[in-house]
């Protein structure tokens, strides 16, 4: 990681003028550290990956000749004798969005150099993320027990299982990687590595990734579970 000098006074113009100043200036096109710029660019690229996955899923959903299973029924849990549609997904979504809140607080603490609280909040974020992955594993095993496979399923179109496992799997992989990432950074925060350098940008960068993973989930939720 590299620390960079803050932009000189007067370059922080906003609007159209700011845009022109950014692009006609030397050295930095955006007044952010290298790592943060790279994370943003990576996330845009990753957006295209998820965009293609979701577009592909929607296309095969339209293309397939067999009936598409009703997500509210497939993803319902029986609680106290009553079938509650999408209850697990609702809880998972709530947890993931909550984790974005704790992550934002962790970034705040990082910039206030509150090491212990920052690490604790990152740990909380990682735990929420891990519980999300755990619930996803529960959901997978429930569907597998019901006979849903990538190549077939008893409820209708085979593409249902294929898209479900592929998209939630790829997203779950992102969450899992994020949990490891957050834990690593949290340990370093606690160990004082960034305190010594006086630069906590990495926490914000990890936060960017985490919020992105959340945002993607919102789209998966809307397009796969609610449609």
């Amino acid at each position, binding site marked *: 990681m*590299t620390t960079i000098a803050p932009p000189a006074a007067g370059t922080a113009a906003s609007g159209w003028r700011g845009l022109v100043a950014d*692009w*006609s*200036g*030397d*050295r*930095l*096109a*955006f007044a*952010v550290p*290298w790592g943060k*710029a*790279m994370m943003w*660019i*990576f996330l*845009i*690229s*990753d957006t*295209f*990956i998820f*965009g*293609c*996955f979701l577009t*592909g899923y929607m*296309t*095969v959903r339209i*293309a*397939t*000749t*067999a009936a598409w299973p009703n997500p509210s029924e497939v993803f319902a849990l029986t609680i106290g004798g009553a079938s509650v549609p999408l209850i697990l997904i609702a809880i998972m979504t709530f947890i993931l969005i909550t984790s974005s809140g704790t992550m934002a607080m962790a970034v705040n603490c990082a910039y206030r150099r509150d090491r212990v609280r920052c690490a604790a909040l990152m740990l909380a974020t990682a735990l929420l993320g891990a519980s999300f992955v755990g619930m996803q594993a529960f959901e997978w095993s429930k569907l597998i027990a019901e006979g849903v496979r*990538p*190549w077939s399923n008893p409820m209708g*179109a*085979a*593409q249902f299982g*294929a898209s479900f496992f*592929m998209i939630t799997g*790829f997203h779950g992989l992102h969450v899992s990687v994020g949990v490891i990432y957050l834990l690593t950074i949290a340990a370093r925060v606690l160990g004082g590595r960034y305190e010594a350098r006086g630069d906590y940008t990495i926490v914000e960068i990890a936060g960017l990734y985490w919020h992105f993973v959340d945002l993607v989930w919102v789209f998966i939720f809307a397009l796969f579970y609610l449609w």
Partner: protein
Amino acid sequence: MSEHDAHGEPRSFWTKYVWSQDHKVIAIQYSLTAIAVGLVALVLSNLMRLQLGFPGAFPFIDPARYYQFVTMHGMIMVIYLLTALFLGGFGNYLIPLMVGARDMVFPYLNMLSFWMYLLAVLVLMAGFFVPGGPTGAGWTLYPPQAILPGTPGTEWGIVLMLVSLLIFIVAATMGGLNYVTTVLQARTRGMTLLRLPLTVWGIFVASILALFAFPALFVSGVMMLFDKLLGTSFFMPAIVSMGQPLKHAGGSPVLFQHLFWFFGHPEVYIVALPAFGIISDLISTHARKNIFGYRMMVWAIVAIGGLSFVVWAHHMYVSGMNPYFGYFFATTTLVIAVPTAIKVYNWVLTLWRGDIHLRVPMLFAIGFISTFAIGGLTGLFLGNVSVDIPLSDTYFVVAHFHMVMGVSPVLAIFGGIYHWYPKLTGRLLDERLGKLHFWVTFLGTYAIYMPMHYLGFLGMPRRYYAYEGYEFIPASAQDLNAFITVAALVVGVTQLVFLFNLAWSLRHGRPAGPNPWGATTLEWQTPDTPPRHGNWGETLPEVHRWAYDYSVPGAARDFIPQNVPQSAAPAGDDAPPADRHAGEGHA
């Protein structure tokens, strides 16, 4: 050296040349790997031509092998040679030097990028040694045939191909993040975006395209792997094969085509834009004249990059689509000709009344204009739905894309290597061997592809193993095919001259000095040639002018390097207004 913070100078052989994090070493690693794998693809193309020119004379080229050669030739050339060499090779070497940085912003990631690329190449090459051989599905890998029995290499080859592509995409992403971030965030003092040499602009925009286009290939690769290995049906409709219904049902083969070409068309510009940039700099330097319409050239690169994402379905006119879609994609395709034509005009106008030095890099640059213009013009034919449909599956298409995105980028690569080799090694490549290499390659290109246009008009279908017994193809077509094969073999063998030149000149070439071409850009102003670790010695260079102050009236020499202050030499009349005012202020 406060700016020098990325990593310390390596000491041992292993950290210096093998596990290197220095962008210059990584660039050479990338380039040599790409050239090596490109030679494999060159041999494959000559083997294909042997079958087409002299059918049956070489019994070991059976139909299955022929299709495997076609597939591997195409994929290697497009992805593992052109993309890797332009971005991983030229991009790695030139970006930090041209923008005045000490290295890429993430050297470790850069190193990983190369090793992932090498892994991708090895996985791809493993296809030649597994049972059933590499895939023969055609470089576009269209399902359902790509993964069904009957196509060569459906046992292992297709799996290795897809896995290799996925690894390559990871490598390209790691590299691309570095290139884009370095250009945006690590330029030296005074190096504004509109003072960047066009080479950097081309590679920069191409890297952005790669970051946004490869995801579509990644996703289609994952889906096809699932179709093959797990038995899913993303791309597989209900199929009756040999009287037996397959387990697949309900998938969409056209979805693959959309995903593939959403990657595939920007890919054309991923290899074309760096070539545009390199050609611009070669022409300006060797014509001793500023590039004509610099800003327009930059905007043309950006516009082409943007448009390249909305033209993909012009590869799918014969797949069947709503006529209004065809209308839309034909329109966007023809619109792309506007910025492209601007570039060609500007190259020609740069040459106009220039002090042209016909050195080898310049020969390749002028050759590029010629092949690119021809290939671009046939693109206008194919961009129109009604013209494309009869021509689509003929050799006309083969000729078109080989002219425009096969040979043209390769000519740019050759020109670039002849141009920058002195910076890499301190010695010039041999001029006479270079001219031999150029003339045979350039004239050979026309000998090979001009007749193919004609064969296409005759209706000779592409992708066929043999052409006996088709009444609509006249017998004389076979003579033309034999001629093409001989020309292709001559061109293929001539590349050995180039390789010999590369190796021989390393020791015996004429010493070049730091700036043999009298070029203005920063990479020629390094304190050492070849540049040492960290590139710039104690202090970073400071940029005071655009990259094209050639033949400025009143200047002592016919070029003014970018790091010469305005007070020391005035900017040329064609320099951007901002630079001119600064010059007048000092004068």
